């Protein structure tokens, strides 16, 4: 059983088991592969931009598109989202306040938060299809007669999403009792009120850019082989084209940096040195953890700003901060997979076990209440391999995406030199990620 009845601080909200530090050989092999690919990329990758963003992709048959876009499909997905959200809410409200027996925490931190990563990688921006706030907003709009439908201010950009992600990861990694029903209810209660207010003011388009989880899912979903072409067709496409279609906007860099930095902080927070700092700090563990989380975001952002600045100076086009933000998405996804793969595979089982008895009354809704979590579902060797491959693959994808963008943005003569700062940046992130896996 993973949770202390005292509800003590738990890693990533739930789960008693952390991943083992990876063997040194894996880390060095990963670092070598990342460096090798970076320099090889500099030497041999194409000189003309190849990725075409939303113009690219091979259309799926009309039948598939009709089925996907059918009203029935959309309504079913909406209903599923509402059902899962309502189930979690009911469990948090009426179930036992013990994450060991209440499925709410596992639903939120494992199935929803971690599960969004593979779901979006496979199917694209899935959260917008199931986000329960959307139908609630529609109902509220109907009741109040406020049927606004306009674009939220441009300057707002992705900033609400970046702040939302930061607030959620704070709840997950820093808050005193992330798994307690009260914490979950307060956080999501506040979140729902804020975003329903935003949606009432601007209409459903508010969710596209400001809902943290929709933005998160959409950014990760750019790497999905499924996508929507500019002509509206559902297509199978090269993930690089999907990545290339990320449109620069205010707050985009911040969002990607928050994704990267909070995952890094999650890894770092296991390190005994940081554990000791947290529990001996005079200002208390929550304040210290908050500062640590903010420092991680600041550090990752600063490094990005410096390297993009250097690239602009060398390449002759300064100041385009968001121009390369898309190339950090695969690196962030690599971090996410590396840190949460085992949590999803092992703790994810618990969600289905606990869901059978959400109120602690001895129910067995799905016939799974008596099962136990199979911890040996994945061996430490498999976990370490997945972790290193995810980090290195994220790095390779990032390098290729950045290369294509730099040959498009910079004059041909300066394109290779101009991307060197980006390679340095990515090597820093990748080696940092491997170091966290090795030593924290």
């Amino acid at each position, binding site marked *: *059983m*993973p949770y*202390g*009845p*005292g509800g*003590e*601080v738990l*890693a990533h909200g739930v789960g*008693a*088991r*952390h*991943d*083992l*530090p990876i063997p040194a050989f894996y880390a060095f092999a990963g670092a070598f592969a990342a460096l090798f690919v970076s320099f090889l990329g500099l030497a041999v990758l194409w000189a003309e931009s190849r990725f075409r963003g939303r113009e690219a992709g091979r259309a799926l048959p009309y039948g598939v598109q009709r089925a996907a876009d059918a009203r029935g499909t959309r309504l079913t997905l909406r209903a599923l989202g509402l059902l899962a959200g309502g189930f979690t809410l009911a469990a948090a409200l009426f179930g036992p306040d013990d994450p060991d027996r209440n499925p709410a925490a596992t639903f939120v931190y494992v199935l929803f938060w971690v599960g969004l990563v593979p779901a979006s990688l496979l199917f694209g921006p899935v959260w917008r299809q199931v986000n329960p706030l959307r139908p609630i907003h529609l109902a509220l709009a109907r009741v109040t007669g406020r049927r606004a439908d306009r674009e939220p201010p441009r300057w707002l950009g992705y900033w609400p999403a970046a702040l939302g992600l930061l607030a959620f990861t704070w709840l997950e990694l820093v808050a005193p009792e992330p798994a307690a029903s009260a914490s979950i209810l307060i956080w999501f209660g506040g979140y729902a009120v804020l975003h329903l207010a935003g949606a009432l003011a601007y209409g459903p388009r508010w969710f596209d850019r400001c809902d943290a989880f929709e933005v998160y899912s959409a950014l990760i979903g750019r790497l999905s082989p499924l996508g929507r072409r500019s002509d509206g067709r559902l297509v199978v496409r090269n993930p690089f084209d999907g990545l290339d279609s990320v449109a620069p906007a205010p707050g985009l860099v911040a969002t990607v940096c928050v994704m990267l930095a909070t995952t890094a902080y999650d890894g770092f927070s*296991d*390190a*005994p*040195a940081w*554990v*000791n700092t947290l*529990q*001996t700090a005079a200002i208390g*563990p929550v304040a210290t953890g908050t500062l640590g989380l903010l420092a991680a975001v600041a550090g990752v952002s600063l490094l990005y700003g410096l390297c993009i600045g250097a690239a602009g100076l060398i390449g002759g086009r300064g100041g385009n901060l968001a121009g390369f933000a898309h190339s950090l998405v695969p690196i962030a996804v690599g971090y996410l997979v590396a840190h949460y793969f085992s949590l999803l595979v092992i703790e994810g089982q618990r969600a289905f076990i606990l869901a059978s008895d959400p109120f602690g009354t001895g129910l067995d809704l799905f016939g799974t209440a008596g099962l136990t979590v199979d*911890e040996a579902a994945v*061996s*430490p060797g498999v976990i370490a391999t997945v972790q290193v491959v995810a980090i290195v693959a994220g790095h390779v994808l990032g390098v290729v995406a950045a290369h294509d963008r730099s040959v498009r943005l910079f004059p041909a003569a300066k394109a290779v030199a101009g991307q060197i700062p980006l390679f340095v940046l990515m090597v820093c992130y990748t080696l940092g990620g491997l*170091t966290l896996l090795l*030593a*924290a």
Partner: protein
Amino acid sequence: MTPRPRRGAVAAAALAALAAVAGCGERPTTHHRPGSDHRPVSGTVSTPGPAHEHGGHRTRDVPAAGAPAVRLEVRRDSESGWNVHVIAERFTFTPESVGGAALPGTGHAHLYLDGEKIARMYAPWHHLAPAAVPPGPHTLTVRLSADDHTIWSVGGKPVEASAPIEGEGGGGATAAAKADETITVRIAGGRVSPPPGRVEIAKGRRVRIEVTGDKPDTVHVHGFDIERALTPGTPAVVEFTADRTGLFEVETHDSRLVLTQLVVR
């Protein structure tokens, strides 16, 4: 980057466990046993012997007839250390009047390890912590003492009993023979010493964790889901086989401190 754990330096802390055990022993009786009325002990009945003869205490002789007698049993505790049982005849433990005048047939007991006094007993049962006995064979001795701390004796010889005891060292006693890895942690004033580090453990090995704290709390080994109540001064001992791989934290519930991390692979 990862601080390695500093182990074994804190075994001495467990000595705090030797605080006198009172309470659940014999209730003081209101009945006077033969020869134990409230008359002051006088001349020939009990004569204090030469000072500093027996562990720093004088003896007080009583006639062989009606003198108290004592036996000593040492049993290994299932979790840690030993339970010491003093079976005294014609003798009552009187912790409430300690420091008063010597009355025949009453008083307390002193416990010695190889002649060195290690505890005062106000009741027939006493728990001996693992760290109290250094590695190797030793002799545990109990002597009956009067309220004025003189040792009851017959013909100049203390009323005493002895039993052999085998210390197994490293802060681990009986179970240490089975434990492959012993981790000792002390909590004082909200600080953990040694500071939380990582202990590498091969899967399948026996792990023993001894925690001494200054506040009541609960020690929890995550992943193996073992909990032990922690009482101030007494080491809480957790022992288990590390049969799952992963990185697991050992924490306290109330003070929410990470004590150490177990790296099982």
